[in-house]
């Protein structure tokens, strides 16, 4: 079984966000980048599915050379090899098209993605990728097991769960709970030094979107305390000041 895991290079969760160039660019100065935590879940499950010689895991990233430490971490966690598509990931469509170009010739049985990246939280790449490849797409899976070439997948849906059987090849995005993220151990870090990391050039993709501007959320206002014996005053404040009722 050949599994392709799509990984993103994202700012650390503790990053203090600011913008450059008239608020049109994210300021990366001093920002630590990490392997997208949601992708770590997909990667962990991919490694579990191929353990014991049952297959291989390739990680793929659309990014410039500065994403390679993140790719090496994925290799240290246990991926067998890696591909970097040498381009800045401008938007979901661009990323999906680039991934599809490599994926279609790789003969992968499963393509796994995290549910979304924690920077732009678009959650669009997995479905777009499946559409471009014309593969079945199953999003937010909670469980995946295999019998032969068929996967049994649980999806969480409103008020219950959906059980799906699907034949390879297909694309999934993983929700939390599919696997526990793995921490690289020393042996993994050592072996990641020599695992293959192939760099491929991007294909031409039309630009469908651009950033107009970024803005920070409105700072949280001060808490206004209203005594419990004055409910009318509370209702009035919610209506007139907070404008929520």
């Amino acid at each position: 079984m050949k599994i392709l895991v799509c990984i993103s290079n994202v700012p650390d969760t503790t990053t203090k966000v600011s913008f450059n160039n008239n608020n049109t660019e994210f300021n990366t100065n001093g920002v630590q980048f990490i392997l997208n935590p949601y992708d770590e879940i997909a990667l962990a499950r991919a490694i579990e599915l191929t353990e014991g010689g049952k297959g291989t895991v390739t990680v793929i990233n659309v990014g410039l050379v500065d994403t390679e430490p993140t790719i090496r971490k994925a290799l240290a966690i246990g991926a067998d090899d890696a591909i970097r598509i040498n381009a800045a990931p401008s938007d979901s469509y661009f990323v999906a098209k680039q991934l599809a170009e490599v994926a279609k010739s790789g003969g992968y049985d499963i393509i796994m993605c995290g549910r979304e990246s924690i920077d732009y939280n678009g959650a669009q790449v997995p479905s777009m990728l499946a559409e471009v490849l014309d593969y079945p797409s199953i999003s937010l899976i909670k469980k995946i097991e295999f019998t032969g070439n068929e996967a049994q997948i649980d999806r969480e849906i409103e008020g219950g769960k959906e059980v799906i059987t699907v034949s390879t090849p297909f694309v999934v995005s993983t929700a939390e709970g599919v696997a526990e993220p793995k921490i690289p151990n020393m042996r993994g870090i050592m072996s990641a030094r020599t695992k293959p990391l192939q760099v491929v050039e991007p294909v031409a993709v039309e630009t469908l979107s651009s950033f107009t501007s970024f803005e920070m959320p409105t700072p949280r206002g001060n808490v206004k305390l209203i005594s419990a014996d004055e409910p009318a005053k509370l209702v009035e404040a919610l209506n007139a000041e907070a404008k929520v009722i």
Partner: protein
Amino acid sequence: MAKTDLFEAPDYYLIDELLTEEHKLVRNSVRDWVKKEVSPIIEDYAQRAEFPKHLVKGLGEIGAFGPTIPVQYGGGGMDYISYGLIMQEVERGDSGIRSTASVQGSLVMWPIYAYGSEAQRNKYLPKLASGEFMGCFGLTEPNHGSNPSGMLTNYKEDGDHVILNGAKMWISNAPFADIAVVWAKNEEGKIKGIIVERGMEGFTTPETHNKWSLRASATGELVFDNVRVPKENILPNVEGLKGPLGCLNQARYGIAWGAMGAAMDCYDTALRYSKERIQFDRPIGGFQLQQKKLAEMITEITKGQLLNWRLGVLKSEDRATAAQISMAKRNSVEVALNTAREARQMLGGMGITGEYPIMRHMMNLESVVTYEGTHDIHLLITGMDVTGLNAFK
């Protein structure tokens, strides 16, 4: 339920830029492991004065046992910056856990690697690296601490065995260790290293109880009552005090980084608390006296981080002197103790509880300031190095 470990490492001088990507991956992996495995349970184990033995396997996997030992013997084959960063992160969790790792890597695996025969390396090192075997190190005796050359533990020849007699004290890992690297005098009065295995008749390891420090680490004695040890267990390639002192160089280097980890944890805890704790209608971090404490802490931590980094470069190039290592060990522990005490004050009453790690670090550091060469002895090492005059006796 245990509180989430919110630790964010201070890096005021962007020292991360001096590290390789692999150094950062090693450091961050150990940091993640400590947050997941150590922080949630350590306070409970320390309160109960119990060693969390289940962490041993994870310490082996994460590379805390012998990271600089070559890969062919099960080690990590890494450089000394990686080793230092691992110790920093483990001690950020707890000095007792770092002590267990230091002893295993620097005081047991390192002498077997540096002074042992090929057969001894192959027999012991892979199992020590994985944590399948745990080791301890016997140098200090009840009446010979800072003066190890006066040791009384000795052995006499008996065919293809030696007969070992004596006692060692304040030995980390002793109560559960499978093997002990013991330093003893031969019949000529020369100090030799010898590997004693649990189960050898006459070898016992009574536990030391009622410690107020390193409570999550097991400490004990090594008692040798006519223990017959095969001669093949003697480390063939070293003789004299330079044997154990070589080991201490390795361990002291790790402590220099480790203690800085404890300091960083205390600082980070106090900084976060100072922004959240409200008195006189504003966070206490806004008051000058609290800022003085934090500013002094981060200044000393930054200096210590830079000193450790430079020492790591020298050590990786095999150029670090014993005296340079002494200076770093002494400096880091002093910075850590001062940081812990000031941070404890900033947290007021909360600082003395197990809700926060500061008091545990502070108590642990009272051992760290004493073992592997006391604070005063390290001054004498520096003093002798710069003057060329011996003030030890």
